[in-house]
């Protein structure tokens, strides 16, 4: 099972958009226009397709800013702190998000793929 193509298929069905628009680098909210109800449906679809428990706070990076603030308040290195909270992202991606965080919702298609692969134990 190709994780990216399965996620692309789910996103295409839920958002009713062409598969070509759904690249790993596409922002799920900023570019593809997903709303909260779409993310709920996506979470249900990931659970059904991959048979993994989906924590929406993690997979959609909902608590990313909360943990960033906590790291700042506790005077900890944000990248290290966030890496521990989001182990599926990897240091490179954490750095990308930190440099991009003021631009709006940071979630990309590749983050979904990374999360599912992590839950499946692929990494």
């Amino acid at each position, binding site marked *: 099972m190709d994780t990216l193509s399965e996620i692309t298929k789910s996103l295409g069905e839920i958002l009713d958009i062409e598969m070509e628009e759904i690249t790993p680098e596409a922002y799920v909210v900023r570019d593809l226009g997903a709303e909260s*109800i779409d993310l*709920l*449906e996506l*979470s*249900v*679809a990931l*659970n059904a397709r991959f048979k993994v428990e989906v924590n929406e706070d993690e997979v959609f990076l909902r608590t990313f800013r909360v943990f960033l603030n906590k790291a700042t308040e506790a005077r900890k290195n944000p990248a290290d702190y966030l890496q521990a909270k989001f182990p599926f992202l990897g240091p490179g991606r954490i750095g990308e998000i930190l440099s991009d965080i003021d631009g709006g919702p940071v979630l990309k298609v590749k983050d979904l793929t990374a999360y599912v692969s992590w839950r499946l134990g692929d990494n």
Partner: protein
Amino acid sequence: MRLEFFGRRVLILGGTCDLAITLAEILIQEGLHPILTWRSEAGKGRLSAMLESFSGRYETVHLDLARRPLLHGLFSELKDDLDYVVDFAHGDMECLIGSANPDEIHRYFSENVSARAELLRMAARIMVRKRRGRMVFVSSSAALKPNPGQGFYAAAKLASEAIYRNLGLELAGRGVTTVTLRPGYIHAGRGKKYLEAGEAEALRAIPLGRALTCREVAQAALFLLSDGAWAFNATEVSMDGGLTAGK
């Protein structure tokens, strides 16, 4: 009028009460498949006895809202396949607010609001996946017009109504709708005990002049489940003979 139903599998929470059993009988006659929850062995036995003539046409499943692990077990038994929920489940807690045991207050809201919300979250996710689902919450006229001693009961009912209302608000676009039915005095369960204690006084407040029967309420729930009632969404319907309309 011939009622039509898009699905078949109906989870009935609080499945051992008179209303639930009456509804189950009607559902079976309509060709639907009720799945009734029971909390105690006595309740399970009651279901078997009362639905004996419908053997094989319904299921029962153990559920106790005080025991969270059973919520997950419930959905495993349902095999993640569900079309409808009808919710009669509600614990009793009759006491003056100023007299209540503080631990009991927490326990009561945990079972009757938080656990219900968790269960509905799981049911909603199944229905979103199927892109179809209907939920009917059976509340009470006491939610709006409680007697002294019914404060916690009313608060838990209103909180639960709000959860159902928002589910309908959030999920209607995905084919999942909800409605709350607020029956008044019924000749069953708590209402029966209350009526037996002071029927004449209670009935004076009802313009209709009588309490509801189990069958009336079950038939109303059946209609609200049907495809024709789909547009009753994210709202509450009173069925109290006019009890809450006047002073």
